[in-house]
């Protein structure tokens, strides 16, 4: 029953988001445009602007939720989030370098290359049979390095416009989502979520500690490699399209754990569903709050909603 409610909430958010935008369209007009009827303008608004935006938001949110759940289960640390492995920072660095040189069309590819380099570095540093803390340390190091180089790139920005593009891009937004972007983002994210879901049983065995997990037939090297590749696909493809969007991967698994329990076999796919719904919901709010001449960025809003909620959960858990 709880699962059905979660799915309905997520689907409702996606559907509702189609009705929200600068141009007011009635329920009937929206539905007609969705199935290819009505005026050309309405069809363009719904099918080429709102629909790709909503689906992109759902896909990115799903990837962030799933990777957060997998990382928290792997590290057995509720503070772990996709950003902890440095993929967000590496993708951001790739995108900022593309912006620096003015290659706007290459931003997604540059972000993906940045993530791939980050994933390769973390795989190399964390080694084959080392502990989860080595992985976190490797992630924190790579993240700090990528952030520093991003800062350096912005510091030497060729002109103020390029710098403002970089800053805005780092705030995260689904504003310019197109189906072509979704064609890049969706397959990679789906592969990532499938990989992270498949390691659910191994992550569950790991809850008994690394030594016990090995004795139960879990190959820690294989598990770590799939975790890194799966997370890199989810996070990298999301950041490549929408910029840096924080906190979803941190607090969505918390909520799901409270409602459905800590079993990673369920936690990863359920966090993906909840993450999808939440990101679309947050995007709806940004559309409500964005007026003429001002724009609220999605990455800022997710953090503004996420941080108080996360602090509430943290205080509640320590009191238990």
């Amino acid at each position, binding site marked *: 029953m709880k699962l059905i409610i979660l799915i309905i909430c997520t689907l409702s958010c996606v559907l509702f988001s189609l009705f929200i935008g600068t141009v007011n369209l009635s329920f009937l007009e929206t539905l007609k445009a969705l199935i290819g009827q009505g005026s050309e303008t309405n069809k363009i608004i719904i099918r080429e602007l709102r629909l790709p935006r909503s689906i992109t938001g759902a896909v990115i949110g799903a990837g962030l939720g799933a990777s957060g759940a997998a990382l928290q289960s792997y590290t057995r640390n509720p503070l772990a989030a996709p950003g902890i492995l440095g993929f967000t920072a590496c993708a951001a660095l790739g995108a900022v370098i593309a912006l620096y040189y003015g290659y706007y069309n290459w931003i997604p590819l540059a972000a993906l290359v940045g993530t791939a380099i980050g994933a390769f570095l973390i795989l190399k540093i964390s080694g084959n049979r080392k502990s989860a803390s080595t992985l976190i340390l490797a992630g924190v190091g790579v993240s700090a390095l990528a952030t520093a180089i991003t800062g350096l790139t912005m510091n030497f920005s060729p002109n103020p416009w390029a710098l403002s593009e970089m800053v805005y891009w780092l705030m995260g937004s689904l504003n310019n989502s197109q189906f072509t972007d979704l064609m890049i983002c969706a397959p990679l994210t789906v592969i990532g979520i499938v990989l992270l879901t498949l390691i*659910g049983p191994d992550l569950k065995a790991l809850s*008994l500690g690394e*030594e*016990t997990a090995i*004795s*139960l*037939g*879990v190959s820690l090297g294989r598990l770590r490699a799939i975790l890194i590749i799966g997370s890199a696909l989810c996070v990298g493809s999301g950041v490549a399209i929408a910029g840096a969007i924080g906190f979803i991967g941190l607090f969505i698994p918390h909520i799901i754990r409270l409602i459905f*329990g*800590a079993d990673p076999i369920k936690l990863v796919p359920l966090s993906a569903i909840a993450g999808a719904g939440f990101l679309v919901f947050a995007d709806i709010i940004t559309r409500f709050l964005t007026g003429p001449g001002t724009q609220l960025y999605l990455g800022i809003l997710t953090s503004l909603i996420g941080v108080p909620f996360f602090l509430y959960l943290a205080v509640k858990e320590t009191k238990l």
Partner: protein
Amino acid sequence: MIHINNLLSGYGPCDVIRNISTEGKYGELIALVGPNGSGKSTLLKTIAGIITPSSGTIKYAGENLSSLSIRKRAKIISYLAQNREAYPSMPVYEIVELGRAPYRGSLGKISSAGKDIIENALNRTKTDMLKNRKFNNLSGGEQARVLLARALAVDAPILLADEPISALDPAFQISMMQTLQNEAKNGRIVIAALHDLSLASQFSNKIWMLNNGEIVAKGTPKKVLSAENLKNTFQLKLPKGGFKQLQLAN
């Protein structure tokens, strides 16, 4: 039967155990005793495949364990870690169910025979009444029994237990030792690292005494726990009248 031959193992470049050659038979509860740092845990972890030995062989039923896949090895050896670690809010049944991990299908499904083994493990450790409770709501003794049930749910012919009775009250210690003894009587090879020499003498069929990474004595408790071995290995005197035995009231 498990045969260990010229085993050399440790962490990184540092070998902790050296020249270990010994064997264990079905039906034996073997107590692994020795001072802190003597290599008890390292030996158990090497047998379990957690640490890769520098040299030497461990054979079970004539097969070299290091040549087996990690999954196959997991079906032969069950390992109960010293740290009582589990996800705090996980229900007891789900923890014990993890013992079937080496046998699960790709979607983590457990067969009906596997479910029977889980129920059996819960009964043998007297944890069946705890199965719906969360791990963090249990006492230390109950947690230890639940994790033992998890190790038994593997249903492996060899059970390794690293200090299974540490930090438990005397009644829980005896209860745990009785369970381990029953497992040995049912035909498993049980090897348990113990600090309590009295309980080792009371429950085990055989003792391997380790000191500075080498087996310095092995055999029956009476033979191994001699005044000379106690003095050389532990700097202890043998109590007058031997080790005292505690028993459960009922």
